[in-house]
């Protein structure tokens, strides 16, 4: 409630203590927050009864809540591999368990073990058991889900122990989001999100002290607790964790474990990142960036101008390895369908468009589209990337019909309509951008591609694509899409005579928005494809410049989980080389790409070619969806 105290409820496990540290110590929020500790299930109930404003609540409680809830960005109990405190234990292997006892204390862990059991095509009985007595239930063919601090002592007692954090991430390739600060939408005042993040930041800085205190309490090994804090629990909540949570909820929904598939909504507020000090040497700038520290705009300019290709590549490769430690490079099978080439924007660099009314201006008919979509399904495709010209003949109803028909007829996700197309619809229909997006979502839109960004700088946009939306509008469409739960990508096309400040400005704007929404899943850049277009061939579209910019982007975009290489535009050889300059995704085994093909780049790779290229670069290929969830 505005003006009053913010009532927080949290569980008193070891892993929550870094989150509550600053508040408990009165270092932040004194006078504003009031913290009480309770059991996990009771924390969620306190929020629904209005006894607490925010609770450190399992994601499962968010998913099943009757009322609308929001999630605080930047703070979570999550894992990116072994978590050590969500374990399935037994005398027999998972496959042989006829009963699995579930710890009542954590609904998310219960849902996770049910889901993973279902996905292994096993059907044991599930029985509930009290937290304190759970370990006693294990025996014979009965296994148990054990959570929290109990795991440390219990895991050595049984021959078969499964770490469900590791099981999840090894299967899906995304973090597991266990719990976060969750509450009703209207309870926060400005500054609260930051306050909660600061409390966590203080806790992380004092992790070793917390580990020592708890090890003394439990008469346990302090090194074990310290490793747990450093290697197992992951406290950030950004784009990757949101994708992990969305994947979890969707899979649970598909498995019949969860009735609804809720949208993950965040409170307004910024995700704070550890920011750098100034006046560092180039070497320390590179090593800090490789470790994931935030670079300032000036740092970015300095790296662009002074760091060698190798310095940037090494640091970006290290950062990629830190974000994607399994050595996996992903790709997607989808089809790029350019549904219309009629376009009013007449961008100088485009060979694809035809003015509306031109005899060569066409819009695909349903039959043609159906054939393309069926081919996509037949080739193992899971998504269609639908982009086209700005065609004044096509209104919102056209897209609503189109999406509904597509979703009803084909098992394909719709990744469609760039911000330029969406803002045009909003103007044409005199509807707000969120209203347009809501109608498109209702008709089946799943995600939005990051096109029409070019360089996010109004000076450059006025020069190369004067009729396209300005920077603020592009960002606003993405902001609204993210708020409505859509995931999007962001792109950048360089080679328009831009200066380093334009490039870094572009990266800075999308990084800033990502701090606010955590809705971008990936960044993709390429150089302007000059051949055959109206602009002359330029020197600043070279492959080496691409590799430099890619590496710099990996370092600068510390909050973007994924960087795609663009083999379609840069060629397979340079695209593949980009995997060693920060890229962790090979993009799409594209069946069609009219826009770039018209400008002279004609490359085709099959899924087998892509997998070979990924392996030859030293990685393991995996197919993914738009959330970067492994399939």
């Amino acid at each position, binding site marked *: 409630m505005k003006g009053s105290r913010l009532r927080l409820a949290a569980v008193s496990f070891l892993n929550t203590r870094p989150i509550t540290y600053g508040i408990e110590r009165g270092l932040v929020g004194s006078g504003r927050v009031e913290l009480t500790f309770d059991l996990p299930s009771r924390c969620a109930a306190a929020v629904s009864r209005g006894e607490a404003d925010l609770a450190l609540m399992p994601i499962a409680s968010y998913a099943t809540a009757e009322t609308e809830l929001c999630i605080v960005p930047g703070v979570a109990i999550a894992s990116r591999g072994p978590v050590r405190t969500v374990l399935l234990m037994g005398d027999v292997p998972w496959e042989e368990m006829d009963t699995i006892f579930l710890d009542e204390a954590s609904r998310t862990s219960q849902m996770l073990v049910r889901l993973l059991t279902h996905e292994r095509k096993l059907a044991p009985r599930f029985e509930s058991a009290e937290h304190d007595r759970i370990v006693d239930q294990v025996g014979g063919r009965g296994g148990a889900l054990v959570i929290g601090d109990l795991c440390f002592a219990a895991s050595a007692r049984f021959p078969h122990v499964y770490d469900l954090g590791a099981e999840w991430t090894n299967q899906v390739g995304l973090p597991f989001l266990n719990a976060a600060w969750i509450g009703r939408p209207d309870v926060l005042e400005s500054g609260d999100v930051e306050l909660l993040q600061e409390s966590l930041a203080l806790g992380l800085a004092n992790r070793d002290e917390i580990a020592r205190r708890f090890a003394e309490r439990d008469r346990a090994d302090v090194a074990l607790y310290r490793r747990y804090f450093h290697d197992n629990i992951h406290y950030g909540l950004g784009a990757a964790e949101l994708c992990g949570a969305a994947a979890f909820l969707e899979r649970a929904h598909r498995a019949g474990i969860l009735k609804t598939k809720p949208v993950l909504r965040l409170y307004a507020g910024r995700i704070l990142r550890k920011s750098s000090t100034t006046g560092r040497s180039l070497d320390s700038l590179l090593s800090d960036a490789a470790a994931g520290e935030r670079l300032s705009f000036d740092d970015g300019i300095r790296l662009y101008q002074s760091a060698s290709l190798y310095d940037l590549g*090494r640091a970006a490769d290290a950062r990629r390895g830190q974000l994607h430690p399994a050595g996996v490079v992903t790709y997607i099978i989808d089809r790029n369908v350019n549904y219309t080439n009629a376009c009013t924007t007449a961008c100088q660099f485009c060979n694809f468009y035809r003015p509306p009314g031109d005899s060569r201006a066409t819009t695909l008919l349903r039959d043609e589209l159906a054939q393309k979509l069926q081919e996509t399904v037949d080739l193992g495709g899971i998504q269609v990337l639908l982009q086209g010209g700005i065609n004044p003949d096509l209104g919102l109803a056209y897209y609503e019909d189109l999406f509904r028909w597509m979703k009803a007829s084909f098992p394909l996700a719709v990744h469609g309509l760039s911000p330029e197309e969406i803002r045009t619809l909003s103007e044409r229909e005199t509807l707000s951008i969120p209203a347009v997006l809501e109608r498109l979502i209702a008709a089946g839109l799943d995600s939005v591609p990051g096109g029409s960004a070019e360089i996010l700088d109004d000076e450059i946009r006025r020069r190369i694509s004067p009729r396209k939306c300005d920077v603020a509008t592009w960002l606003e469409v993405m902001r609204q899409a993210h708020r409505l739960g859509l995931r999007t990508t962001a792109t950048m096309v360089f080679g328009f005579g831009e200066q380093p400040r334009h490039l870094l400005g572009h990266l800075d704007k999308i990084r800033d928005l990502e701090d606010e929404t955590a809705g971008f899943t990936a960044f993709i850049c390429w150089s302007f494809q000059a051949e055959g277009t109206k602009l002359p061939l330029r020197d600043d579209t070279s492959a*080496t410049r691409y590799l430099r910019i890619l590496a710099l982007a990996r370092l600068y975009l510390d909050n973007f989980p994924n960087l795609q290489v663009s083999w379609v535009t840069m*060629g397979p*050889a*340079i695209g593949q*080389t980009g995997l060693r300059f920060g890229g962790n995704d090979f993009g799409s085994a594209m069946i069609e790409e009219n826009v770039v093909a018209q400008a002279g780049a004609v490359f085709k790779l099959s899924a087998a070619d892509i997998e070979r290229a990924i392996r*030859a670069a030293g990685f393991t290929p995996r197919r993914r969806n738009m959330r970067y969830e492994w399939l």
Partner: protein
Amino acid sequence: MIFSDVAKKVRAGDPLSADDGLLLYRHPSLVELAALANEVRERLHGQRTYFNRNLHINPTNVCVARCKLCSFSRRAADAEGAFVLSVDDAVARLQARLRAGDAPTEVHLVGGLHDGLPFSYFLELLAALKAAAPGISLKAFSAVEIFFFHRTYRMSVEEILRRLQAAGLDSLPGGGAEILSSRVRKAICPGKCSADEWVDVHRTAHRLGIKSNCTMMFGTVERLDERVEHLLRLRSLQAETGGFLAFIPLPFHPENNALGDHPAPTGAEILRNFAVARLVLGNIPHLKAYWVSLGLDTAQTALWFGADDLDGTVSEEKIYHLAGARSPQSLTPAAMARMIRAAGRIPVERDTLYRKLSTREEQEAM
């Protein structure tokens, strides 16, 4: 041995062992490898990156060697698409360039092993080209062709080379080396001379004052240790004669040949091969990124993986284009200089012996 030990040897100028070479081929960080190769490249050449103006002439595509990797050759003189270029046609091709004000400084002549041509044809070809442009450098006939002449015309390799030299031959191209290993040659090009014979032709040429290039055609059936062995053989001949100008790694192209189901090496493998070659072949001055075979982007990128030369303006390339290369047929000197500059290097136009002719700036200032 770990990478940093190898790096120490490289920096001290010590020759690398076969094990070192293998370690480099297997080193996980492509970027570290490139950075080290670049140290050697910049120590030798600074930012300078060479190109020349050249003309490719293929006298014939009739060939008795049935190499599985080849998309160019025809088995018999009367086969569809088979040709033998007359001396007059070859000269006409050169003269067309001279008339267009686009004089090459070098003609690159390689062809099939045609058993129905007299030796005099080749001598006349050289003499006529030289007569048409007396200052031009003739880089002609790979070691495989020289060895074939030796067999066909029953003269020693030395005698063949002396006669060709007298007719105007200046240097030998580096082709036909493929992988210098009998196991690999048996599998992909059993009709070509052996590895020892290939090396011997170059040794003899060097002794006669004929400089040459050397190549490696990689990405077919060879193992990494065979690639290292190949590099070490070249290095060892270079230590003996000093006659190699440049090493040219050539990735296998799979279209229109009998190895068509074998995939081409990928970009990262190609760039790695450049870096390893630069590090192992410390005594061969130049490393050439042949853009016709690599494609423009990869060739340009190779300039940061050890390469210091982009070959020439070319024109009328057949061998790689028949195997599926998608690069253009020729480039202007201005385009080559721009490509080099766009990669952040300094273009230097050279002659066959890598003597500087002029920098682009100098030309533009003229």
